[in-house]
């Protein structure tokens, strides 16, 4: 409990501290009001947005409001009457732009597919049969958890729900089987975050839409790093379980002793149908047979069919999935509306140019730029949802990539792993709070944090590997796009 209070205090101190620093910065560096240029206003805008986000107001509306207010000022300075300000046209065209961007149509469909899979109890069956099939492996429950998460990630693009669902589903059985609290919570939190990277990730669709990179290529690029990372997790758990079997005791013999036939039957009814669905959806995207939108629609239909076959489809379940889909989609897309309105004004003011000229003046090497941009993304990933970072902050870096000769595809893959890492990094890690919300009371936040650290280090290792050997991500797209 004390640990929690400490965190509270820290969050508040850090938050107000940053807001104070921004204000101080303005007092020190802004010229007197008569000499303020539009580009200066752009910088004020950027500072105000960071401060208001920290105050906890819904970010989409902060963006829309700031875009409008600063737009008024910018156009007002050149003498345009308020009600005829071009900012109105800008705003409505940006909004309509979000409504008609065809790449994003895949977002609600993948979210819908994910909720159907989540609500249909497919995951439950999946975990139980994987657990039985792997009972001979050291750390069987933790390995099965990560494998289930990876498969679920491949069937959906949402993450908060996965940590919650897996926490509810597997934490109790693991603790009952005598598993170490830290190892169990770490495996759940780390596995639950795999959805950011593993296709069909919604994050990669949004990145593709803002960066103008083909979503198909992003999916291809993310496939191998995603599998690599899952294997690293599994390997780590097995090694820990072999070195210290007390952390992950074997299941009792009577539970392990399931006839081979029984296991095959369970796998055939749980893992194979979902694996087939995933292969069909991803396969058709990667081989160019269908667009992500089409594959997502077919995937949603397939998931509904699968749920119906399991006798788990009911009107109530469908309703829940539909309503949750609409709320998640609205959350993401209104954020896009806000961001597009904001960035339109930001660019009009010349803020983006000023920022870029600063970065170029710093005379960074490509490696240095990559390091600093990813560091900023990592730090932002502590307090902010990944949607916010991808939609608002990553676009600031994107126009600078060509100057440093960095492939936006590569940058996207690195950002995806980076955001996963930030999600697992104390003290702000969102995954920990999701898990704490459903864990038994004796599992403390500190336990979860300690449990996540090794997985976070594995993520860092994966990032370094990707930077040293870009082929891990870039090889597959290059094969298909020759």
């Amino acid at each position: 409990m004390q640990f929690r209070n400490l965190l509270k205090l820290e969050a508040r101190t850090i938050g107000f501290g940053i807001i104070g620093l921004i204000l101080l910065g303005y007092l020190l560096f802004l010229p007197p009001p008569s000499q303020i240029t539009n580009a200066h206003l752009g910088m004020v805008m950027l500072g105000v947005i960071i401060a208001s986000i920290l105050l906890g107001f819904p970010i989409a509306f902060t963006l829309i409001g700031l875009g409008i207010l600063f737009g008024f000022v910018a156009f007002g300075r050149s003498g345009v009457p308020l009600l005829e300000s071009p900012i109105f046209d800008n705003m409505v065209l940006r909004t309509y732009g979000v409504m008609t961007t065809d790449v994003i149509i895949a977002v609600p469909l993948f979210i819908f597919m994910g909720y159907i899979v989540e609500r249909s109890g497919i995951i439950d069956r999946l975990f139980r049969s994987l657990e039985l099939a792997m009972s001979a492996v050291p750390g069987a429950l933790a390995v099965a958890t990560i494998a289930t998460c990876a498969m679920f990630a491949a069937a959906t693009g949402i993450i908060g729900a996965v940590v919650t669902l897996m926490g509810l589903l597997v934490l109790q059985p693991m603790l009952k089987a005598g598993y170490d609290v830290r190892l169990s919570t770490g495996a759940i939190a780390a596995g639950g975050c795999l959805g950011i990277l593993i296709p069909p990730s919604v994050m990669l669709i949004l990145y593709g839409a803002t960066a103008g990179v083909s979503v198909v290529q992003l999916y291809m690029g993310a496939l191998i790093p995603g599998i690599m990372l899952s294997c690293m997790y599994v390997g780590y758990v097995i090694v820990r379980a072999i070195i210290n079997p007390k952390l992950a005791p074997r299941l009792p013999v009577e539970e392990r002793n399931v006839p081979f036939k029984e296991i095959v039957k369970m796998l055939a009814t749980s893992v194979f149908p979902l694996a087939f669905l995933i292969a069909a959806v991803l396969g058709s995207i990667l081989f160019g047979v269908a667009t992500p939108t089409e594959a997502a629609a077919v995937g949603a239909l397939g998931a509904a069919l699968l749920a119906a076959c399991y006798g788990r489809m009911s009107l109530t379940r469908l309703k829940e999935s539909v309503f949750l889909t609409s709320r998640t989609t609205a959350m993401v897309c209104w954020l896009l509306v806000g961001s597009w309105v904001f960035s339109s004004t930001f660019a009009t003011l010349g803020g983006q140019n000023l920022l870029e000229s600063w970065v170029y003046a710093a005379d960074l090497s490509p490696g240095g730029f990559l390091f600093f941009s990813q560091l900023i993304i990592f730090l932002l990933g502590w307090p902010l949802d990944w949607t916010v970072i991808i939609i608002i902050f990553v676009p600031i870096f994107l126009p600078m990539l060509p100057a440093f000769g960095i492939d936006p595809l590569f940058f996207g893959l690195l950002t995806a792993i980076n955001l996963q890492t930030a999600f697992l990094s104390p003290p702000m890690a969102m995954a920990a709070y999701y898990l704490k919300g459903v864990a038994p009371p004796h599992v403390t936040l500190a336990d979860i944090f300690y449990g996540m650290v090794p997985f976070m280090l594995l993520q860092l290792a994966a990032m370094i590997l990707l930077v040293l050997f870009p082929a891990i991500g870039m090889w597959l797209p290059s094969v298909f796009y020759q």
Partner: protein
Amino acid sequence: MNHYLLLIDRISAWTGKTFAWTVVLLTLIVGYDVTMRYIFNAQTQWGFDLAYILYGILFMMAGAYTLSRNGHVRADMMYRTLRPKTQAWFDLVLYLLFFLPGISALVYAGIDFAHVSWQMREVSSVTSSGVPIYPFKLAIPVAGFLLLLQGFAEIARCIVCIRTGEWPRRLHDVEEEDIDQLKKIISDDPVKGA
């Protein structure tokens, strides 16, 4: 007072939930389109137009509904450590400063935008299917108006909270309900006993 607030919640929820079903239509139409293309080699023209129209309506009309469930993403690491009264003060100021001007501008600009389109009975220019898109553009001012209405309810909630020190009740608390639903899904599972 609270009666009116809950009424606004209900209006937002009703419109959001009604238009939420467009995702099912969207799934079916895109699915149909793919089938037509691969099996009958006859892709429809209107399928593409209808897809983005349904997607656009889905998220626009769910904006107010999502706000009524406090579902728009906020960075709450600091916010959640504050007392309700302080939270309400922050929210109140920012609703007046950002939300009202921003969304009012959206409604104002949206009416004009939809009006022009409506007058010329605009059809899609993306494909040659002739699908009318003027009703689609109407979604901007309508969604903006609903958001504005829900925004007023939220502002009233802030004022109540500043006076009484605690947040007034919402239609229902989704987060908890959601976890309960997930628990139910798990405990329902027939495989569990096996």
